[in-house]
């Protein structure tokens, strides 16, 4: 009796260590484990015995479909929810990270953190243009775009309730600074008239943004003349000419200046020059830093939430798997006892039950991952971003996420199979043969 306790305690200890290692194991580590296992199964005598024993178990699986499907569906549920949640976080951070680049810089008033909070005086813009590090165009003019962003209320397409949209006023250089933005329908807005172009995300998110329609913003009527695609956070925005926007909203100052810089070195040059000019109390960061910073908080929150929810579900699934496998071992007690009686030793029996559980877990993981991918990949949602306005983004079910989902599935299978496997190996042979 005492010995059994010791054994159980030991196996739990091994399990904890094994799981920790399993979670931090990179893909090539997993590949190495898989290859080692395969070689062991093929080449050694015990391995071959284990494989033979596992084959018997797996062959009888169809008779136990009801019970086995508990493992598959349970694990598919965990993996599906986990992958979907993480895909949401990944999609959000990918959208914001793509928005920025290392060779453009955004300049804001010192201490303002986000565009909405910032103010840049008109007389500061020519000063900024003279700073070193900023790229020049063919005519030798610095490439920089003073911008204004106004949060406006627009009815959402789904419910018609008001949501905050970002209405950005840009200058001509904005298109050169963000070469990823392309007009996909209609044309660009004209300067001096109340015309605007909408991002493809915004077009889907809000009502009445089709080309040719009139939108009422800031008590003025604007005509939608085009749709642009950028594949990043700008997709959620409405764009117009900066001076038109400034006059419509009576804004005398700008909010931010986005500038092209000459790579990393140019940025450092610009940053130093700005810090040493007492007339400019401004903050400058690369747009990549700026947008990445906006995504970290929410991405982290989603990651924690997803892991906690997945964790609780995994605990439930583990008990389900344990239950099923205990029942499977009990149901096949005679068979297992016979195998033991004819000379199968402990290890092959343990391995056989484990392999069976892992196979079911793998199926569950694949099923869950597939469902998450089929339903959610590219699924479009919106949330409030750092500028008090909606950011439209897509769920992104990446191969890495599917891979970590599979790792979770196999981890659950490992715990769910180990204890029933140990029981199978310890089954008293004579009693089991006599029973039933």
């Amino acid at each position, binding site marked *: 009796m005492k010995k059994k306790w010791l054994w159980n305690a030991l196996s739990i200890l091994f399990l904890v260590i094994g799981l920790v290692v399993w979670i931090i194991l990179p893909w090539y580590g997993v590949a190495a484990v898989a290859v080692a296992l395969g070689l062991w199964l093929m080449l050694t005598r015990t391995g071959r015995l284990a494989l033979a024993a596992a084959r018997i178990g797996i062959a009888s699986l169809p008779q136990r479909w*009801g*019970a086995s*499907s*508990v493992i598959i*569906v*349970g694990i598919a*549920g965990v993996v*599906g*929810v986990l992958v*979907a949640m993480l895909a949401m976080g990944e999609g959000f951070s990918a959208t914001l990270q793509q928005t920025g680049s290392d060779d453009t810089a955004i300049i804001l*008033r*010192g*201490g*303002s*953190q*986000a565009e*909405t*909070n910032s*103010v840049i005086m008109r007389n500061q813009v020519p000063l900024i243009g003279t700073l070193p590090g900023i790229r020049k165009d063919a005519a030798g003019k610095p490439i920089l775009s003073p911008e204004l962003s*106004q*949060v*406006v*209320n627009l009815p959402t397409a789904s419910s018609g*309730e*008001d*949501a*905050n949209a970002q209405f950005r006023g840009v200058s001509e250089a904005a298109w050169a600074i963000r070469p990823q933005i392309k007009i996909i329908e209609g044309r660009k807005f004209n300067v001096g008239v109340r015309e605007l172009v909408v991002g493809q995300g915004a077009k889907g998110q809000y009502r009445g943004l089709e080309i040719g329609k009139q939108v009422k*913003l*800031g*008590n003025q009527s604007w005509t939608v003349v085009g749709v642009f695609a950028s594949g990043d956070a700008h997709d959620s925005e409405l764009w117009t000419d900066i001076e038109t926007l400034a006059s419509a909203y*009576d804004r005398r100052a700008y909010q931010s200046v986005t500038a092209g810089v000459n790579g990393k070195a140019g940025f450092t040059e610009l940053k130093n020059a700005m810090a040493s000019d007492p007339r400019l*109390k401004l903050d400058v960061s690369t747009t990549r830093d700026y947008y990445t910073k906006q995504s970290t908080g929410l991405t982290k929150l989603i990651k924690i939430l997803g892991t906690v*929810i997945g964790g*609780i*579900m995994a*605990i*439930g*699934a583990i*008990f*389900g798997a*344990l*239950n*099923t496998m*205990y*029942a499977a071992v009990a149901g096949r007690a005679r068979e297992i006892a016979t195998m033991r009686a004819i000379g199968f030793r402990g290890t092959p029996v343990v391995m056989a039950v484990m392999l069976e559980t892992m196979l079911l877990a793998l199926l569950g993981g694949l099923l869950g991952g597939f469902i998450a991918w089929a339903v959610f990949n590219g699924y479009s*949602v*919106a*949330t*409030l971003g750092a500028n*008090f306005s*909606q950011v439209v983004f897509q769920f992104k079910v990446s191969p890495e996420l599917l891979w970590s989902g599979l790792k979770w599935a196999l981890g659950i299978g490992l715990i769910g199979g180990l204890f029933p496997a140990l029981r199978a190996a310890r089954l008293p042979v004579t009693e089991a043969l006599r029973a039933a």
Partner: protein
Amino acid sequence: MKYFSLIWSALFRSKTRTFLTLLSVIAAFLLFGLLDSVRVAFNSGGSVAGADRLVVASRLSITQMLPYSLTPQIAATPGVKKSAYAAWFGGIYRDPKNFFPNFSVSENYFELYPEFVIKPEELKAWQTERTGAMVGESLAKRNGWKIGDTIPLQATIFPQKDGSNAWPLKMSGTFKLNDSKRKGEENQLVFHWKYFDEANQYTNGMVGWYIVKLDNVDHATRVAKAIDAISQNSDHETKSQTEQAFQQSFAKQFADIGLIVTAIMAAVFFTLLLLTGNTMSQAVRDRIPELAVLKTLGFTNGTVLTLVLVESVLLIVLGGVIGMGLAAVIIPVLSAASGGLLNLPNIPVETWTLGLSLMLAIGIVVGALPALRAMRLKIVDALAGR
């Protein structure tokens, strides 16, 4: 009731199986309790207390401010008992990560929020101190601020007239909320709008939003319309809605929590159905001879059916109640650990009712087939093991 001990011992006939199933049920309902509380919290906009207050904000956009000159007109609108105003400040304390809401308010602001408990002498001290600030108790505790301390708030939107971002405020007192569901509101700081208006560089005579206390809750729509009519066709059109609706519209923009929770719970309960269904059919299969003996002793078909059904309902309700009880224990701990950032209410009655009906429904659904099988047993066949 007289068969309770029979059902109970049937339930624990196979201890391992029952315990493992119970643990799965517990995990499922723990998750349900947590998630559904979040959903209810989001959809009800935090509290019912705001039903007799209107928030009047710009119709154009949340960042647009309104002129202070609307004050007398709003106060004179029939149906308005009292009105106050506030303006978002958005300052940070040391690091942007220490975010907490902070805004400037009119002197009578707290009169509209009688649920904020303040010591009269502290309120008085605040009203006479130009740079005074009132701080929620949790926020003060977390940052170790004491009355009389200077809080070096850094502006992100509104610098002082000289361009500096430093807004040192003097802490005059604290406020607290007795309702445990609203403890999160202690995570804010307010100071004088007058000081804000005089000292900031950009705005003059502008407020962020008005708060209006109604004479009668039933008149909310009428009063809201009357207030919005004041500024119609101007460049500062307003949108008045109850405080509840205002908070809800904000929460909804973050995410469709309802949809996410429903999707997750659908996956969880589908799995649970399969899992417990499997357990129950195993339990009945193992017990066929025993059930036959019961029938031989004179138990009717109906009684046997009920026995099995009650057993399955009991299994789910037992696990479900333990799970939701666990959630009820965890939620306050979570809220406390997050220092007021995450503010979850205790499990609302709505969630308990929904949870209990789900437990009953799942129990009956998974028990139905095994129970029917038990009912239809032929004594002779069952005893002979056929």
